[in-house]
């Protein structure tokens, strides 16, 4: 429930263009390019220093529809909470 309401907030936040989806909507094996980040400056600072800068390619490794996700970004596997993954906007490749 909480996740769904966050989803709505996210849509309100950014003028999400067609083709732009949250990272959490990618399926295992799919790739995307980071196009934007939303959320607090502190969290975004961490995400950026971990390599989630706009233009970066990410590969989704594991996504069971609930719980955390596993992605590869810049040679590294990173576990992300679903809430955090919702705040990364990607364009699917």
């Amino acid at each position, binding site marked *: 429930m909480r996740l769904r309401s966050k989803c709505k907030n996210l849509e309100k936040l950014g003028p999400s263009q067609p083709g732009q989806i949250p990272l959490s909507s990618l399926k295992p094996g799919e790739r995307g390019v980071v196009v934007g980040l939303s959320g607090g400056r502190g969290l975004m600072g961490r995400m950026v220093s971990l*390599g989630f800068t706009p233009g970066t390619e990410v590969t989704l490794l594991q996504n069971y529809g609930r719980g955390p996700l596993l992605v590869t970004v810049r040679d590294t*596997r990173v576990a992300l*909470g679903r809430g955090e993954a919702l705040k990364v906007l990607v364009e699917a490749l």
Partner: protein
Amino acid sequence: MSETKASCTIALAGQPNVGKSTVFNMLTGLNQHVGNWPGKTVEQKTGLYTHDGQVIRLVDLPGTYSLTANSEEERIARDFLLRERPDVVVVIVNAAALERNLYLVAELLSMPVRVVVGLNMTDVAEQEGILVETHVLQAALGAPVVPLVASRNQGVSELIDAALRLIKNPDDFAPNRPEIRPKHRPVLAEIRSLLGGKITLYPEDWTAIKLLEGDTEITEMVRQSAQEAWERIHTLLKQHEDAYLDVAGGRYEWVGRMVRAAVEKPKAGAISLTDRLDKIATHPFWGLALLLGIFGLVFWLTYTAAMPVVSWLGMKVISSIAESVRQVLAPAPAWLTSLLVDGLIGGAGTVLTFVPILIVFFAVLGLLEDVGYLARSAYVMDRFMHWMGLHGRSFLPMCIGFGCNVPGVMCARIVEERRARLLTILLMPLVPCSARMAVIAFLAPAFFGKNAALVSWGLVAGNTLLLLLVGMAINRGVFRGARSAFIMEMPLYHLPNARTIGLYIWYKTGAFIKKAGGIILLASAIVWLLAYLPGGEIEGSLLARFGRWLEPAGQWLGLGDWRLIVALLSSFVAKENTIATLGVLYGSEANLGLAEQVARTLTPAAALAFLVVQMTFIPCAATVAVIKQETASWKWTAFSVGLLLVISFGAAVIIYQLARVMGWGG
């Protein structure tokens, strides 16, 4: 060796899981000092290393992904580099994940320090098909690069050679520094000129970049020391709030150039060893099954490998020492003998009996961490930790808490956010530690016969459920249902290193003995005093009077016998003291074990209630002490003790009354 003899200081930097600690351990071995950074709860490790007759002081900085002050660790590492100015910084990078690792190097090269790069895990990289051309990388960075396999002690000495060469010839260091993306270069230049001459502590270039990154600490510093320019700077920063993306983006473009020049990678889509292992280890079902299996194995190992040693220590070593002290002290007054033998040697024995259990526990934990598995367990448990507003990282301290709550509480430091760390610490006493399990293992067979295993598992399951419920309640009630972010790197799997694990066991067990040893001894002496005064007989002592005074409350849960209450109270010293106290109070009857004697006085319902209290009673003295140390608050420490008092009493009353309704009241 004293630190003053050191001729130079080398700081070790690196991201987590790159083998930085391995390098540090290789160099310093047992010649290290583990403490805290001044005024912080982050561990500080320094050590001495002698290289060709020259004594070098090594400082192990906290492992950080960047130096942007996102966390306390990052602030500590940054402040050390800027204020203490080590002679050289050795940054360890993982050759198998160079793109990510070079980000920290990019930040370091922008600081006023000289840098040597230790390219570690070249073996893991090769195994994954990644080839790094060291000399090309060195030329591109403008800083020395030394290839390493730290786990096999290859290249470590050459790394120090390179660092010492750089100290001797500082002009050889001509780093290629990253730049902000072109869009924000003009504003960076303007801020830098505004800062001109007003900042003395830090270099202007670096300070300007930090302002654009939105670094709160540096922003505050500039606001105070460059007041006349602040208004203009503030306006510029407001207009360019997105500049932080271009700062980080510029660094990653720089990293990209380095990687393209020096790294040869396999084609995408190749399946690595880590990919294959993670298919199981991070699977929502199989991952959980694997984790439970590992837990089972740890308990089995503890019982088969550590328990026999524990009982041998108790039966042979401690009692023979006690016997010889008793003989030596025969002419001395009775109270002195009693204090030394029953109070102090008993207390020291308690500390000693923990050691084999903790060694087994830390050995397994150190192995799992070194292999790279621990991060996976946090990932698998994240779903469940979310119920309590925590995330996977909090699972790691709880995991340690199963061995002993004391190191568990100390390990809660790895949880970055204060609220989540506090909740993790408050829940720790509800993690059944090995000492409590030992009491259950001793009493349950006598209490419940062939149902003992069932009851024991039921108690552990009930305890876990209680932890979940209490966690959810505290999160809702005290922290208003807040959630924290879960971002965690999953390291590549690699072969374990015996030396790393050995030192992990040595320092963790040592820290426990130092931390808990004194407190357990002191508490033992106090309890001895309460049980001795005023007449020297426990039946008439202050402790017994207090127990009798509590008897009416005990009746609620079927424990109307003061001896049981006193046994529970004495578990405050250390959880397994319950058994020792029962032993004293019930005396010894021939042909009947202690547990059987106690069992005869209890109905099944009361026996169950006794075990429930034992499992959930207030934390032991050593745990209370570290809770105070780690929360830095008497209020939260008192809250923790009070909470557990209420929980243990409440849970036991409910269980007892329910059991009576079920007809187990005898």
